[in-house]
């Protein structure tokens, strides 16, 4: 008898400050799926010795919180987490195992799918159980969002899903009875393969990263040159934001790779995203389409970026942006 067969597990990572960092946004979905199966939503919280992240998980939809506590667990060696999750499953495999979109979670999910010989759907944006079915139907974008696909894993368990970055917002509410257990003991036998030799802080740190910025001013091929990014930087500074770009820009070496948004770069979701001279190919928009508000400035009225923009200005960047900067200064004065 597998005691876990109807349960939905969520792997929750803890940030260095002890707060839940990734995965906690999936507990609401996990609770809904668990209700459909008649099981429990379980938060497997890694690296939370002081219990802060575990307490957060208890408030966001977990029926049970399992604290993984072991000095052997290492963020640079996911084999340790894979071993720990395998040990937790000795009592039986859950119906599903959900992961957030961090690099560690993605890497661990890949390991678990192969280790357990089961199916995996990455970048899911929705998970539901159709009535009469025993398996989850996952929805995920393919080809940078040009298409959507629905997938399922009907035989093997657990069904593994990795959420798309920024697709789920932390929510959910506390369940009636939350049980918290600690998994330690045997975990100490785990030995990490890789070791962190050194962490080197970035030079000139203190710059706002595009992942953290609430406002992002992004430029594409239409900006025309490395110098052209000067006015974007000025606008970003005025709005307390950061400057990002599309791939044509990093390919031309006008901006560093760290500023790249899209399929080959970062996925971000700021409050305000101002796309300047970006046509809006899927390879770019898949990295920013979850932004709260998108503004597009482009000289081509047919550019696909306008399809996802709230406001659009068809015009010359070199006229629009300086005028926008002056107008914002005037409004604020």
């Amino acid at each position, binding site marked *: 008898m597998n005691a876990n067969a109807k349960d939905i597990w969520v792997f929750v990572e803890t940030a260095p400050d002890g707060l839940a960092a990734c995965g906690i946004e999936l507990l609401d979905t996990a609770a809904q799926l668990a209700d459909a199966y008649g099981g429990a939503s379980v938060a497997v919280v890694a690296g939370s010795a002081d219990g802060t992240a575990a307490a957060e998980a208890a408030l966001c939809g977990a029926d049970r919180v399992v604290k993984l506590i072991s000095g052997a667990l290492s963020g640079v060696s996911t084999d340790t987490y894979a071993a720990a999750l395998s040990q937790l499953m000795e009592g039986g495999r859950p119906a599903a195992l959900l992961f957030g979109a961090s690099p560690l979670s993605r890497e661990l999910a*890949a390991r678990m799918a192969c280790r357990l*010989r089961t199916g995996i759907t990455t970048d899911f944006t929705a998970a539901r159980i159709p009535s009469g079915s025993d398996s989850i139907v996952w929805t995920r974008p393919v080809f*940078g969002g040009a298409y959507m696909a629905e*997938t399922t894993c009907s035989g093997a368990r657990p069904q593994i899903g990795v959420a798309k970055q920024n697709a789920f917002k932390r929510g959910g509410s506390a369940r009636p009875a939350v049980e918290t257990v600690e998994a330690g003991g045997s975990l100490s036998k785990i030995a990490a393969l890789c070791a962190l*030799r050194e962490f080197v802080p*970035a030079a000139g740190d203190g710059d706002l990263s595009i992942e953290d910025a609430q406002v992002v001013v992004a430029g594409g091929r239409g900006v025309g040159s490395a110098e052209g990014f000067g006015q974007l930087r000025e606008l970003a500074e005025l709005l307390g934001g950061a400057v990002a770009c599309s791939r044509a820009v990093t390919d031309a070496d006008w901006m560093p790779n760290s500023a790249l948004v899209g*399929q080959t770069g970062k996925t971000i979701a700021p409050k305000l995203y101002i796309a300047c001279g970006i046509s809006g190919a899927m390879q770019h928009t898949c990295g920013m389409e979850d932004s709260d508000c998108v503004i597009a400035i482009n000289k081509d009225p047919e550019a696909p970026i306008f*399809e996802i923009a709230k*406001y*659009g200005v068809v015009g010359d960047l070199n006229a629009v942006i300086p005028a926008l900067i002056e107008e914002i200064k005037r409004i604020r004065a």
Partner: protein
Amino acid sequence: MNILVCIKQTPDTERGCPDYLEGAGRIDRSSTERIINVFDSYALEAASRLCDACPGSKLVALSLGPAEAKAVLKEALSISADKAYLVSGDAFAGLDAPASARVLAAAVRRIEQDEGVFDAIFCGKASTDGETSVVPGGLAEELGRALVSGCSEASSDGPAVLAKREVKGGYELISAPTPCVLSCVKPEGSFKFPTIRRKLAANRALIPVLGPEDLAADTAGATKVLRVYRPERSGSCDFIKCETDEESAAELAARLSADSLI
């Protein structure tokens, strides 16, 4: 060092998106030009730099795909690879990501009988068509080897490889014992290009093909695609059109201000 790089042939998604075959309910991968998966070109570059730093190294390229995928192996040979292998066969068409990892792992074990154990296997972080980023982790798991994901540089460090990985606020140097698997993002600096001499040699190169009969691998996938469809975009853009760009900018600023966005 003895190095392997895994290379996938993918549609050139930067230049267009493959067509959707309405009746068949699938995507026509032949409708776009095919290139080396962008992330795999990063893996090839990082692997080449490690080989250049360690005289006497050997760089082997491996691809899993249809017969046409030989094109990307020839490209790898013309840039920096010393030898190439193709894994191909009808039984390998349409594999899901974990099954691809199992087949690649079986191929690695087979090739290592001839080429020796690879100190490091370089992969791209993800493919631009499947976009799962499952294969590097799956390969490490199947082979029981250490894994560093998302690295941009690797150097030899005695019995280990030292991998550089960009993280928030800086970078990590991670020591992985060999043999290991590394998944790569874009290395800084300029890339190696094919030379005429290498191109000519690549065209003449013999590329061994490993088929289902050469490899003991379970190709059954657990994931099934139910349907593929085009998402609807809202298309509710509010265009601001004034006489001049300056007036449009002023109107935009007013709207943003009214929405409390600035």
